[in-house]
């Protein structure tokens, strides 16, 4: 829609400084975010011009040496009526044609994902062609590059909002409703997102990553994600799995082949995740151990209790087992 205002980019870059960052709307990586960014630039420039106009107009009478008769009609009709009427008559239709890609219709062979907001984490489940729940993950969304992905957004408890600024705007997740949204990443990469609707005590610590992979890699990943968890290879890992079962981790968490529960994040591949606790900590065995032992200290009020009754070696075994779930 309209001419590409790319020539403005240097100007904007100059005024905003670095715009990057893993979670920036100013660094679009998908068609929706890009068209919104383009719309933004048009409006920033327009707003800057109007601000300049108003500022100059209001300072002139203060600074001019002597008064001159004023054309009141010009001010009221020109500035008050014509200016907003004309600019908005031009802008409003343009605005209305932007961003529809996030609600676009999708084809049947598309990747469809159910994302459910919980306090304070995200459940991610890939739909099988028949609509049933397939491979699951949490706090991470793997997608193939260059394809529109259909997301169905649910909420388990309170209202959350899914927002990955680099890919698209946000859509709320509302209990009792299913919202639909289409996102697309144009280049491989990791795009951070964060819950955008205040959802309680730890709203702050509710982030997630979109990992855009080339189609082939994505297929590999998805196939792997659909497999049951690997059998533990060493005695320590076996001890870890036994602890997982014995301590009741499986009451909340699913590990494909070991437990089925859906109250907490699916842990089938937790060892390969970039973060723990929905962006609270990076991954890795050290963090897994720390999180397991003191989840309530690190993210007070989240649903996971601190497993502080474990002995050192048990904690290590459990952490090692979880880390082995790749």
């Amino acid at each position: 829609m309209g001419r590409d205002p790319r020539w403005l980019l240097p100007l904007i870059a100059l005024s905003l400084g670095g715009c990057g960052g893993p979670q920036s709307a100013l660094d679009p990586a998908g068609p929706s975010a890009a068209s919104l960014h383009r719309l933004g630039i048009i409006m920033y420039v327009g707003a800057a011009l109007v601000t300049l106009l108003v500022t100059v107009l209001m300072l002139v009478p203060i600074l001019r040496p002597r008064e001159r008769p004023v054309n009141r009609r010009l001010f009221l009709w020109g500035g008050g009526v014509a200016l907003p009427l004309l600019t908005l008559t031009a802008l409003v239709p343009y605005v209305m044609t932007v961003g529809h890609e996030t609600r676009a219709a999708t084809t049947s062979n598309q990747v469809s994902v159910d994302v459910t907001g919980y306090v304070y984490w995200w459940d991610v489940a890939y739909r099988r062609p028949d609509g049933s729940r397939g491979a699951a993950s949490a706090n991470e969304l793997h997608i193939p590059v260059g394809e529109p992905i259909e997301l169905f957004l649910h909420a388990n408890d309170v209202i959350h909002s899914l927002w990955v600024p680099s890919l698209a705007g946000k859509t709320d997740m509302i209990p009792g409703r299913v919202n639909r949204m289409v996102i697309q990443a144009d280049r491989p990469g990791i795009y951070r997102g964060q819950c955008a609707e205040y959802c309680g005590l730890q709203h702050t610590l509710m982030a997630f990553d979109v990992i855009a992979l080339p189609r082939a890699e994505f297929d590999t990943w998805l196939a792997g994600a659909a497999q049951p968890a690997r059998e533990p290879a060493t005695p320590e890992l076996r001890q870890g799995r036994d602890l997982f079962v014995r301590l009741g981790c499986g009451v909340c968490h699913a590990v494909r082949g070991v437990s089925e529960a859906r109250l907490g994040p699916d842990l089938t591949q937790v060892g390969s995740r970039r973060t723990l606790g929905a962006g609270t900590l990076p991954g890795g065995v050290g963090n897994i151990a720390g999180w397991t032992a003191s989840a309530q200290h690190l993210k007070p009020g989240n649903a996971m209790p601190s497993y502080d009754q474990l002995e050192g070696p048990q904690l290590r075994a459990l952490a090692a087992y979880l880390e082995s779930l790749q």
Partner: protein
Amino acid sequence: MSSLELDNEIEPRSEMGTLHRLLDPAFGFFVWAAHFLVVYIMTAVACVLGLGAAGEGVRTTFLTVLLALTVAAAAIVLLHAVWRYRQHRDLPEQRFRMVVTIGNDGIATVGIVWQLFPILLVPVCA
């Protein structure tokens, strides 16, 4: 009141007369509000009833109805403005009432007409 130089306007002596004269300058906005609510509620209800999945013909009919409502609302407001202008243009003491009425009607008309943009440009129930 002989001791005062009042406008030629006469204080209405009935309950409804006063309210009517007070609210008449905002006539355009009452129409705007009614139109706005009607198109919004019609859309919401139509989508609940499954307009999104309905055929092209049904949708076109629906949009045509919205379009007609919008044009009708705008026309009513403009007529009101013209009517008041003819009533008041020769009465200098009614200039304030006239300007406010016509101005409100004008802005309300813009508000109504701008609803054409969504009706023409935005997909129904998406």
